[in-house]
């Protein structure tokens, strides 16, 4: 009889998994089509209706009718299901891996009970225009949740309307624009100041809202450059839009001075709280003097990321800016909840209706499951996990944590593999693709890569010490392999669902194909031109 636990222990502690991701070799859905198969049926019209109205489609003007049926595939129900279940298995998902490798995105555990609650027909089957008396439950959830966010930020009024973080950044930029316009300064205040280690959307969304962007680079220690900020502020300044801690995990201790300097020239300050997870209940927008802020519900507040949404966000403002919030806002008269549309100074609509209700409900339930002490514990353990992983990472040869040497980090760390790349020619991206062979995700970082060969790790509060040890062991193994056997790393992944893409079609208009029909057409055209040449 073999002592399997002893054998596994001898294979290393922590032992690297003998992992292979699901590989179904699944066709594109059109290849599953079989003539006449049906996936679901539509109710047939009752004879009484037929008798009363006849064939309505035939009576419509020919110009509005579809000439030929859409060339959709014909697939029976279980075959459609199987296709998508196989594709789901070919997707790692946060529930399945120690998902610390998508730093800045706060990949934390999304509690299952909150999914169950969000799928209740009591929410799923609500129409947004129902009479207020029939939706008091969800309005109460929204109103109370706004109250939690007021406590966590210290700001005075919230809207839950934006569909995700970037939409919230845009909404805040739009409020800044409306504020200056209300003072007759819209033409003068053209500039939004941000930092290069704030999320790219602070620059992109403010630009979309019509502003010119001034980007501050860090000082030698990696903190936002105070001198640069002083040089940037002027009567042209509309506002400051930044994260803190920044995407490096470094907290700007002079943030109050930054905010004061912008206020001094008449600008507003918006706090992108995408990185709020490590500071919940520790420090708030109010104490730093911010006028606006936003939270990502799919990050800090645990709602699932859904392959990139549906997500949710909340924007908060001080009292003087409340009149600009999107319409409607949820109000409470002491007895009943209402939707207030009568807000003439509002920026208007950011999205249909009132926000992504199932996401808001999950976020509400998450806060309720933690309470005031639990929320602070989230932050404290997230920061502990991050600094523990930092210690483990820095024990690996070839990696560094640029800037603020010897200082602690808050919610994530931006690492650099520049030394390893110089030594081995293996890039950060290669390391990530090789890490996938051991069942974990790893991402480089947002551009521009001011930190060379970057990766950003954010362990949140959701991972145990053993999880973090395992993740660090995988990264150590891959880094050592880069020295020993760089080809294996450079040609990874080897045990993932598929192998390295040919990237050449992706930037070539003659070859790129964003739909199956475009792909088939371009194949025909290529074959045709080949024949003509022959």
């Amino acid at each position, binding site marked *: 009889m073999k002592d399997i636990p002893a054998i596994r222990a001898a294979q290393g502690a922590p032992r690297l998994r003998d992992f292979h991701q699901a590989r179904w070799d699944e066709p594109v859905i059109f290849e599953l089509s079989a003539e006449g198969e049906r996936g679901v049926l539509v109710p047939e019209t009752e004879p009484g209706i037929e008798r009363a109205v006849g064939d309505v489609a035939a009576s419509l003007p020919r110009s509005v009718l579809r000439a030929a049926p859409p060339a959709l595939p014909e697939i029976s129900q279980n075959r459609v299901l199987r296709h998508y279940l196989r594709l789901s298995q070919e997707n790692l998902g946060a529930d399945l891996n120690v998902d610390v490798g998508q730093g800045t995105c706060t990949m934390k555990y999304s509690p299952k009970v909150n999914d169950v609650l969000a799928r209740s027909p009591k*929410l799923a089957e609500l129409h947004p225009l129902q009479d207020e008396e029939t939706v008091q439950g969800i309005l109460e959830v929204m109103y109370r949740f706004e109250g939690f966010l007021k406590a966590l930020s210290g700001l005075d009024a919230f809207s839950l309307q934006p569909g995700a973080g970037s939409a919230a950044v845009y909404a805040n930029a739009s409020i800044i624009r409306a504020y200056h316009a209300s003072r007759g300064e819209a033409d003068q205040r053209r500039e939004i100041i941000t930092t290069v280690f704030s999320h790219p959307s602070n620059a992109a969304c403010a630009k979309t809202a019509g502003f010119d962007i001034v980007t501050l680079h860090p000082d030698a220690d990696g903190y936002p450059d105070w001198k640069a900020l002083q040089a940037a502020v002027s009567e042209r300044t509309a506002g400051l839009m930044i994260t803190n801690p920044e995407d490096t995990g470094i907290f700007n201790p002079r943030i109050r001075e930054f905010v004061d300097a912008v206020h001094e020239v008449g600008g507003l300050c918006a706090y992108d709280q995408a990185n709020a997870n490590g500071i919940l209940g520790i420090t708030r927008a109010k104490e730093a003097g911010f006028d606006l802020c936003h939270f990502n519900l799919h990050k800090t507040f645990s709602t699932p990321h859904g392959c990139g949404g549906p997500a949710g966000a909340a924007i908060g403002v001080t009292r003087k800016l409340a009149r600009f919030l999107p319409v409607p806002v949820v109000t409470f008269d002491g007895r009943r909840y209402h939707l207030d549309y009568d807000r003439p100074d509002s920026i208007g609509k950011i999205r249909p209706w009132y926000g992504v209700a199932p996401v808001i409900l999950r976020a509400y339930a998450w806060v309720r499951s933690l309470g005031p002490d639990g929320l602070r514990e989230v932050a404290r353990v997230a920061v502990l996990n991050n600094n523990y992983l930092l210690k483990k990472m820095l024990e690996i040869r070839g990696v560094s944590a640029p800037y603020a040497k010897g200082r602690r980090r808050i919610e994530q760390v931006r690492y650099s593999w520049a030394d390893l790349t110089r030594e081995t020619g293996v890039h950060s991206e290669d390391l990530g693709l090789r890490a996938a062979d051991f069942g974990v995700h790893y991402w480089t970082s947002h551009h521009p890569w001011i930190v060379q060969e970057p990766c950003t790790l954010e362990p949140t509060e959701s991972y145990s010490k053993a999880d973090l040890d395992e993740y660090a062991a995988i990264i150590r193994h891959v880094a050592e392999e880069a020295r020993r056997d760089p080809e294996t790393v450079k040609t990874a992944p080897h045990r*993932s669902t598929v192998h390295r893409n040919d990237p050449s079609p992706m930037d070539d208009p003659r070859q790129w194909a964003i739909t199956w029909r475009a792909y088939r057409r371009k194949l025909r055209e290529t074959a045709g031109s080949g024949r003509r040449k022959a």
Partner: protein
Amino acid sequence: MGKRRSTAHPYIPNSARAAKEAMLREIGAASEDDLYEDIPEALRFRGRLAIPEALASEPELRRHVEGLLAKNRSCAESLNFLGAGCTQHFVPAVCDEINARAEFLTAYAGEPYDDHGRFQSLFDYASLMGELLNMDVVNVPTYDGFQATATGLRMAARITGRSEVLVSRAVSADKLSKIRDYLRPRIRVQLFDFDPVTGEPDLASLEEAISNETAAVYFESPSYLGVIPSCGDDVSATAHDVGALSVVGVDPSTLGVLAPPADYGADIVVGDLQPLGMHMAYGGGHAGFIATRDEPRFVLEYPSRLFGITSTSVEGEYGFGDVAFERTSFALREGGKEWVGTAAALWGITAGAYLALLGPQGMRELGETILQRSHYAAKRLARIPGVRAPRFRGAFFHEFVVDFSRTGKSVTRIHRALLRRGIFGGKDLSSEFASLKGCALYSVTEVHTKGDLDRLADAIEEAVA
């Protein structure tokens, strides 16, 4: 509470004391407080968060939240005729099963390898939508139809280098509000009329408003007021004559029977995916699509991710990745096109599954069934003294305007009477359109049986009597 505070929280493994102490020892810190060394005392929040105590056990939490939800009365417990941009359709169980899969639900931004399933299922989605729309390029979904429309118009302005768009007056006030806010920095928004009798785009009004500065003409099929334009060709041609683009918003659930906008000259087609397999969820089921022809001048103006198909290092293997990534804000920050970020990808996967389940036959039957039921409803309502349905003479699909103005009763009053009978009447248009006082927009789909529609008609008849 004392016991609870010393207990590890189930969502926080390292709230267990042993792990915490071991980790603190390893990093040489006395407590977590030491780790906040960069946060000055003046910025510290020293109060207690004004948040209720934890419901840390699952049964307590469920009881509380389910208690709140119990205060709602849903469309499953009532008979609903509200639409106006959020439509009650049948949601196949398979759609719910797929989007509840943890691998999809909890994934985010993996690489084309560890997240191959996400890339392929969104390529499937874009390909299925491409067939429905008769277009070669479809984006990874944006937030909702409002955003798709606003972005479609900004794309048109960039493509043409012009700074004015003409928007049909037959759009919702909310969507117009979104368009105005989103286009405000650089693009003027002008409106053109709809015909008061047919509800179709008014070509004379369009001709009058259009000029060489027009970047785009935007209209919808069906319009917000439910009318299917029969003159789509003419509207598009009018736009093209001055070098403008035709941007059309379409309800994808209509396209089994109705012509896709590309067939009447649309250059950019936009809309919302909610009808294709998403629950209404109090407005949480929205996702936006944008579709165009496969020309670089269009493709390079999308802000969204676009997933393309390619080969891999293994013969016969499909790979998927980002097309023209360098146009995005992920690559270029403020130098990219608008912005890209988390939006509504899971609803794209779901809409793909929905289209695969329905297939060509299902989409046609869906359209036919809806047409018959909505027309039956209109016919029944029209028999009620004082009620005019449909208000407009143009063709309609699932929605139509009901005019109660000659009943002598306000929409509010009629709808209150319906509510007492467990019926949610359609959207009141009285304050939204000056010309539609006393009118409401009713939505009828495949979920409504003949019995439901007769019940509605009987209830309205009583309410207006």
